[in-house]
């Protein structure tokens, strides 16, 4: 573990810390909107990790001069991660929109967007079902 190694890997570790903050929000929080925000944070930190792999020290953005006379001395960063992440950002917003629409429907159906409340309602519904139809179905479902 040389000093150079630690400095060279510190960016990755920071991104992983961010990622884990997002994951924690997704797992530990009961509110659905908050879960989506956590998912977004997680996603963005994955993007940062990818982009940081394509970075070259002293490099510049992968855009040639307009006349396409490329100076062989210029170092360009790797454009491939950029392309992949552009696609991922757009797909990410699509999934976010779908999740939020689902939340609106859930709120309409249950009157709440808290996981605890919804699980409670579901539990009571199952209890009710068991009480009414339990015998016909051959005991508790």
């Amino acid at each position, binding site marked *: 573990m040389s000093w150079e190694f630690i400095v060279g890997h510190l960016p990755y570790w920071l991104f992983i810390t961010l990622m884990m903050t997002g994951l924690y929000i997704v797992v530990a929080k009961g509110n659905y909107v908050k879960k989506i925000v956590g998912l977004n944070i997680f996603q963005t930190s994955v993007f940062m990790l990818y982009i940081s792999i394509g*970075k070259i020290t002293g490099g510049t*953005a992968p855009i040639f001069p*307009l006349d396409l006379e490329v100076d062989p001395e210029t170092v360009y960063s790797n454009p491939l991660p*950029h*392309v992949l992440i*552009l696609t991922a950002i757009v797909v990410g917003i699509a999934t976010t929109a779908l999740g939020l629409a689902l939340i609106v429907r859930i709120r309409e159906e249950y009157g709440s967007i808290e996981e605890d409340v919804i699980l409670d309602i579901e539990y009571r519904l199952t209890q009710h079902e068991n009480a009414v139809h339990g015998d016909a179905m051959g005991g508790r479902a």
Partner: protein
Amino acid sequence: MVATAVAIARMRSLFATVMLAGVFSLLSALLFVNLDAVDVAFTEAAVGAGISTVLMLGTLALTSRVERPSSRSPVIPLFVVIATGAMLIYGTLDMPNFGSPDAPAQLHVAPDYFYGTEKDIKLPNVVTAILASYRGFDTLGETAVVFTAGIGVLLLISGLRTRRRRDEDEEEDET
């Protein structure tokens, strides 16, 4: 950025959470500029800080604004998160240093793309050339995903007003 993320985790007001998420997106866009990914940076600024904030505010308007305190203990999630993070950090130990020019990721396809863009496609922006030409099928798939998601959102939301009216009618019938 870590501070923003932790603040989001602790904040109870959903409105402030959404605003902080926008701030987080904008900061990450700045970071992308620093990492030479200008195309990604302005997509992130437009989509992450713009559209998703608007969508979330719309959802908040249709639902509630305050988060209820959770009854579950945070110990198990914290343990899971720390274990996953430790494994990921263990995974980075084999990676080349940040910004090193002789990393494997820099040596294989990237020079080909640069050469091809300069000789065949003759576009100054390499990212555009790869996105539309070399990886055109990826972009086609992406469009399909966005289309599907759009249909899904429309199907989920569309009946909102008629359903509300029907519910009100039923309530009037009952009373």
